[in-house]
């Protein structure tokens, strides 16, 4: 932060009543400062109450205009105690999101910076986000972003830990460090973060930055799955299907695939379709198989995800087969042909994606 910002900041570095003598003067000074702090706290509370009182069903525009009074209270609070880390964080958020005031990324970054310097993990995380991608008036600076994510992570900020774990994994803004990545996923996992548990399980399953341990992987998949993380439900299902880290149990595999499928996790559709198709773990049922496979063949999301793409590719191949012989669907050479072409496209996409991923890791390794 520049010196100008500090000068403008109105920090009451000095108390109002300093020109007094003796220890009694220090008592007066403390009392005077306390009154300012209390006033700041009161206006801060009022601001938060106003913020929380905005009806949930408001549109973004209504929401912003309803916050004029909120922003005024926040400013008054800040005038009484410009050094209050909580008020600073809120001001940062208000300027960034334009809550009751015009959006001003530079002001937002300045307020977040001041709170971050005082050790507020949330402010460190938000400021890091602004640097990570750059913002109006904020130059992109990924090493500064990583530094801030690091600080927030060390304070136990779970979201920062997840971002940092992911950044170390794909080497965004820093040298790829798979051990560091797994370290932060573990920290998040141990704090009960479902996503952290899922990422840690993946790392353990692949032996990525940690010694391969299928049994531990399965136990973290289970924790994440129980928290409703669809990808973890799928991962746990797969382990039951393969008998990896747990005793092979197709019934359990189906149970977890169904949960993931209920959340529209597309790879789970494929597994269920495939199991109905060949009658393994589920009764042979071509109609159901075809239904699941159709859903898996055209996933709504997860385009860049290998699990989604590879299961879609396999579903397309199975569908081409089913249309060719009229199994669970009406026989159609045209549709069979079209699914097969989709399959070939997906195959090329997948190998490109695999190439890009290995290039990234290669580049970061060297």
């Amino acid at each position, binding site marked *: 932060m520049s010196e100008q910002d500090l000068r403008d900041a109105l920090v009451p570095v*000095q108390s109002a009543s300093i020109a007094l003598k003796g220890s009694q003067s220090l008592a*007066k000074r403390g009392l005077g400062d*306390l009154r300012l702090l209390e006033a700041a706290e009161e206006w801060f509370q009022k601001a938060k109450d106003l913020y929380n009182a905005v009806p949930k069903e408001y549109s973004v525009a209504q929401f912003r205009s309803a916050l004029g009074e909120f922003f005024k209270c926040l400013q008054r609070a800040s005038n009484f105690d410009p050094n209050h880390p909580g008020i600073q964080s809120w001001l940062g958020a208000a300027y960034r999101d334009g809550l009751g005031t015009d959006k001003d990324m530079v002001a937002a970054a300045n307020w977040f910076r001041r709170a971050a310097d005082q050790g507020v993990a949330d402010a460190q995380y938000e400021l890091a986000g602004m640097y990570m991608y750059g913002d109006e008036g904020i130059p992109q600076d990924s090493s500064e972003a990583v530094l801030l994510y690091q600080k927030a992570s060390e304070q136990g900020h779970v979201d920062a830990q997840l971002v940092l774990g992911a950044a170390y994994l794909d080497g965004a803004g820093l040298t790829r460090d798979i051990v560091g990545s797994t370290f932060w996923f573990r920290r998040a996992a141990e704090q009960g973060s479902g996503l952290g548990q899922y990422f840690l399980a993946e790392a353990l399953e692949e032996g990525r930055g940690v010694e391969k341990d299928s049994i531990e992987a399965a136990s973290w998949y289970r924790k994440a799955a129980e928290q409703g993380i669809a990808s973890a439900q799928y991962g746990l299902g797969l382990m039951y299907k393969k008998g990896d880290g747990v005793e092979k149990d197709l019934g359990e595999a189906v149970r977890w695939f169904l949960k993931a499928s209920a959340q529209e996790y597309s790879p789970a559709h494929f597994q269920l379709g495939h199991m109905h198709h060949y009658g393994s773990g589920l009764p042979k049922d071509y109609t159901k198989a075809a239904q699941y496979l159709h859903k898996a063949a055209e996933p709504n999301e997860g385009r860049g995800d290998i699990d989604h793409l590879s299961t879609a590719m396999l579903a397309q191949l199975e569908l081409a087969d089913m249309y060719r012989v009229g199994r669970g669907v009406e026989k159609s050479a045209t549709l069979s042909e079209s699914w097969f072409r989709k399959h070939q496209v997906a195959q090329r996409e997948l190998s490109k994606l695999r190439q890009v991923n290995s290039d990234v890791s290669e580049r970061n390794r060297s």
Partner: protein
Amino acid sequence: MKSEVVRRLSPEEEELAVKREELSRLEVQLAEQELLLASLKAELAAFEGEYLRRVGVLYAELDEWNARIAELDAEQDGTPEAKAKAAEARSQAEEAYSAAHGEAAAVQPFVPSPELKSLYREAAKRVHPDTATDEADRTRRERLMKEVNAAYAAGDEDALRRILAGFDTSPDAVQGSGVGAELIRVLRQLKQLRDRIVAIESEIVSISETDLARLKEKADLAATEGRNLLAEMEANVQGRLQVIQRQFEMRSGE
């Protein structure tokens, strides 16, 4: 049956007995009030000590940085105003430093034991200057009462025991003669005691209106809510110290 001669009390003697009873009641009440006042003072002094050690020193540090910045400004500007401002800031810093590191800051926490309190009550009742019967006696008692108060504030039970053991009340008993003279003396003592009780009450009021007492009141209130006010104040001034230090670094880097 053994006959007993019961001497009928004269009206003066009856009055004297009533007043003596009132006197001993008031002595107990006064000792209690003195204990209240002495405790209040000792608690405040202890609070002041803690406040100065934790928050006061930080204020002094704040003033020190402020003086350094003002001095840098004076060096760079060289104007008489800047120089005067620097001198003022410097003397403020020195003032705050000596206040925060002075005698008052050395006072340790005050936690009186029940024994200390009961020794104080006893001593206050026995040596209180307002039960004096003449000027010489009053002087002696005033000196002793000071010792009693100092021993209490220092939590020194042995000193209180020594004062009690060395105090001889016999002179009172033999002074004067006759019921009338005695009655007059008791009435005078009663008035002195009542005056002192009123004086203590008003002293307690004026003490609790000081800034220090207000601050302590806030700290006590915060403690009932599970908050630590001095820690909050410390954190606040620490935060401001960070800012002023950064300001100083920027100025000195110019």
